């Protein structure tokens, strides 16, 4: 359920951008997920359900994973903890609550199909019935 909520928020945001730019549809979506963002690759499975019937329906979702890095104020350098949620410096063992990367959950970019490309796209995918092409539901 959680991933579906995130997927729905993502689709809504992308559709807003697409509409504002008069795009006919969205070809691809690139997002960035931190290792701590608490959403898994299950987002891939939820995305088609959230996108159904929207301009994101045929979009490809690309997920870029961002590793966890923390700042150790004692060593004064950026470290990668030994495990997720082990907020200790791997070298000096002191607590390192200052997370630099790993919490991201961002929409990075979208690839829009302009209105005048509608005919060409339809021509390419004329053998696909969009109402039955959704998988993973």
């Amino acid at each position, binding site marked *: *359920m*959680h991933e579906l*909520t*995130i997927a729905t*928020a*993502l689709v*809504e*945001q992308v559709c*807003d*951008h697409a509409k504002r*730019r008069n*795009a006919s549809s969205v*070809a691809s979506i690139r*997002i960035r997920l931190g290792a*701590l*963002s*608490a*959403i898994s690759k299950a987002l891939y499975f939820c995305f088609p359900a959230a996108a159904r019937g929207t301009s994101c329906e045929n979009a490809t979702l690309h997920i870029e994973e961002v590793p966890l890095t923390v700042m150790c104020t004692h060593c004064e350098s950026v470290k990668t903890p030994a495990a*997720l*949620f*082990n*907020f*200790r410096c791997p070298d000096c063992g002191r*607590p390192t*609550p200052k997370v630099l990367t790993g919490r991201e*959950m*961002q*929409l*990075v*970019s*979208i*690839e*829009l*199909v*302009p209105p005048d*490309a509608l005919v*060409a796209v339809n021509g390419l995918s004329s053998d696909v019935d969009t109402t039955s092409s959704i998988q993973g539901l």
Partner: protein
Amino acid sequence: MCGLCGCGPDSDHIHSKHDHHTSGGHDVVRIERDILAKNDRYAEDNRELFQKRGVLTVNLVSSPGSGKTTLLVRTATEMKRLFPLAVIEGDQQTSIDAERIRAIGVPTIQLNTGRGCHLDAHMVGHAIEELELKEDSVLFIENVGNLVCPANFDLGEAEKIAILSVTEGDDKPLKYPDIFAAAGTLVLSKIDLLAHIDFDVERCIENARALNPRIEVLQLSARTGEGIDRWIDKLAADARQSAQLRLCHA
């Protein structure tokens, strides 16, 4: 007033920077914006309203059955003499919990999330319109019993408070790290049962601090009243601070 879902003015304000290039006739737009940006905007609106009215808002998160509602009933019974109180109850179904709180005379809104697994800032925004929060009051938001999803959703609260009953096991913080990393306070509840179970309080606190070195820990039993005074003292101190901040902002 909800300014974001179309039920109010100011329907949109995007702060993201765009830059474009084209790829195979397609327009590639760079956005760089949080996926939950919309929730976060609602949360900021809620937070602003709380600050303006000097309301201390705490978001109580836990697994189902940790004793959140029992603790809330006990807390509200003692605190209603000190501050005006209000409660937002989140559950998938029923208004059983809201009725328990209303029975002690505290205004309560029940939110049913249906298939949803957490409260979001939009639902809370509408609930606080209905509650008509008093100045310098305390608002308790009892989130849906779930240790995973509520971690991601800012509701505009001053603090997330994680409640962990000792019957759940001292390794719970390690199994569900997100929520314990996001919480400012950990409440160990049902400590009257410690004599009967193998729950190592020190190990549990150590596990929580490994995730969140700054987390404050309180131990209590809503049934016997042990530790309740310190809990009320903490909330009262935070509520007074929220009230003072209102005067500073005014």
